[in-house]
């Protein structure tokens, strides 16, 4: 690659001439000398990688790979933790500014006020939506944030068991179990909050629940508190444009997934774990926290407002093995995107978008429920997801729809809840194209008529 003594790659400026100058200064004649400490017997192994590709070739390769994905194009009614949203155009525009995108954790506040002030906006937005008093700057995703919330609950209560209230997203439950394995905590799955005992540090409840229904969080929180445990609400932040803030309903900690409002689903990641809490847990929070402060006094100079990373004695780089978490690099750019999307929508826009989502989903459900052979499972109030039973077994129905290039809702028929029996979990949001819903209803009508 070093043809003609030029730079070895477009990203490395040093030419042979540069290298010669630098080596001369070091008094050596080969870069290899710099690696002399490495064990000679193991050095420079044969490594088989595909050949290097120039930019245009790389784009062709990935365009070919992209063409092997059919998922993006088709009508899809999958939700189950990832929801397509109408993202304002300014979001992608602003987060692509390289001053935001190519900086890192704001260790030097004097030249990181952009990241820091935006993080403070994020914390403010999260507190407003969730009804909580404090928020960190975001975690990996909803599931790991929920697992961290469980660890916090175990720390502050001194209890060694966690309670998960079904229906909970299986991915969230899985991650809680992964973290609990390390912490040596027991994980119990409850079908009703009344099954809480004095052994449980917390009760984890999803809002809306995994099968789409809107919970009465107040009664859930009450049951947790009666058992002396914390209530952790796992809430969809978009749905909170319409639904009661979990903090209002008595939750002690709130987690959620912010990815959907930050950008396209991206096959599930990177994501954004929302983590908010009551003030009394402030010093137990995992992750980074940004605080507002002022410049130090200088003569003849009115101190201005600025932002810094704060309460860092909780964190791994100071407290090491006694830190509240090992959290380091997070999801700052997604948090920025989330903040801009929510602020662009504003108070009315967010409410209106959430209602539009609600109405489109309910309209689609009503049309499907009216088809011969199809029924919507009755579960009380719901937001954007509904259970459909059709004239065919769920897997077969999904296959028939796939044959028409429509991706059905998730097959939940193997779940323990009676309402999930024989059902597919369909999702329609404000961003689902109306013609996709038309296509679905038409396809289902045909399938229903034939069976």
């Amino acid at each position, binding site marked *: 690659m070093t043809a003609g003594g030029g730079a070895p790659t477009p990203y490395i400026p040093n030419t042979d001439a540069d290298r010669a100058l630098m080596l001369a200064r070091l008094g050596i004649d080969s870069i290899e000398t710099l690696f002399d400490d490495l064990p000679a017997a193991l050095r420079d192994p044969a490594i088989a990688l595909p050949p290097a590709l120039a930019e245009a070739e790389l784009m062709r390769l990935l365009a070919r790979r992209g063409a092997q994905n059919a998922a993006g194009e088709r009508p899809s009614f999958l939700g189950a933790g990832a929801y397509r949203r109408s993202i304002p155009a300014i979001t992608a525009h602003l987060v692509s500014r390289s001053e935001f995108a190519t900086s890192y954790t704001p260790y030097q506040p004097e030249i990181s006020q952009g990241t820091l002030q935006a993080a403070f906006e994020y914390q403010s937005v999260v507190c407003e939506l969730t009804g909580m008093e404090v928020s960190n700057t975001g975690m990996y995703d909803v599931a790991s944030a929920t697992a961290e919330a469980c660890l916090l609950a175990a720390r502050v209560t001194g209890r060694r068991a966690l309670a998960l209230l079904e229906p909970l997203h299986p991915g969230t439950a899985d991650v809680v179990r992964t973290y609990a394995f390390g912490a040596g905590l027991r994980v119990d799955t409850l079908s009703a909050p009344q099954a809480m005992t004095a052994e449980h540090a917390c009760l984890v409840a999803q809002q809306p629940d995994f099968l789409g229904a809107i919970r009465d969080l107040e009664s859930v929180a009450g049951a947790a508190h009666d058992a002396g445990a914390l209530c952790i609400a796992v809430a969809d932040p978009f749905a909170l444009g319409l639904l009661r803030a979990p903090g209002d309903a008595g939750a002690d900690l709130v987690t959620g997934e912010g990815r959907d409002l930050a950008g396209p689903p991206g096959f599930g990641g990177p994501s954004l774990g929302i983590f908010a809490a009551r003030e009394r847990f402030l010093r137990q929070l995992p992750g980074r926290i940004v605080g507002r402060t002022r410049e130090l006094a200088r003569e003849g100079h009115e101190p201005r407002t600025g932002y810094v990373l704060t309460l*860092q004695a909780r964190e791994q780089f100071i*407290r090491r093995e006694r830190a509240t978490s090992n959290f380091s690099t997070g999801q700052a750019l997604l948090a920025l995107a989330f903040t801009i999307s929510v602020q662009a929508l504003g108070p009315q826009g967010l409410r209106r978008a959430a209602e539009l989502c609600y109405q489109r989903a309910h309209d689609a459900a009503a049309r499907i429920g009216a088809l011969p052979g199809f029924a919507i499972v009755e579960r009380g109030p719901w937001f954007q997801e509904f259970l459909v039973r059709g004239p065919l077994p769920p897997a077969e129905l999904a296959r028939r729809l796939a044959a028409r290039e429509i991706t059905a809702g998730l097959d939940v028929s193997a779940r323990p809840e009676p309402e999930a029996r024989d059902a597919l979990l369909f999702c329609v949001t404000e961003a689902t194209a109306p013609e996709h819903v038309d296509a679905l209803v038409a396809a289902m009508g045909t399938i229903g008529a034939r069976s």
Partner: protein
Amino acid sequence: MEFPPQLRYTTSDEWLHVQGREGVVGITDHAQDQLGDIVFVELPEIGRQVKRGEAFGVIESVKAVCDLHTPVDGEVIARNDALTDAPELVNRSPYADGWMIRLRLSDPAQATELRDAAAYQAALPAAPAH
């Protein structure tokens, strides 16, 4: 830097002021200087029994965190709640307003095993110019 002669000192930079069967505990001027701006002090519940060398609390500065160790055995009979709102008192006045807890001593004789001011000062590393 000052190290009042009437106090006794631990190797972990706490001081003890024995007053009859009671003793007051805080951290030294050297300790507060090393920690820098103190931002939070966590103190024990009143009534707690503490054993010599055991951590009775935690002190945080902007960039560091340390356990606070009790110099002697005893029962916590008072704590300085003013530090909740004004942890900077520890920086400003480590031996007076920045006190942390008052103990009922289980065995006042234990205090004699602690260092006196001269011995404590002699064991400190040479201070940088600042």
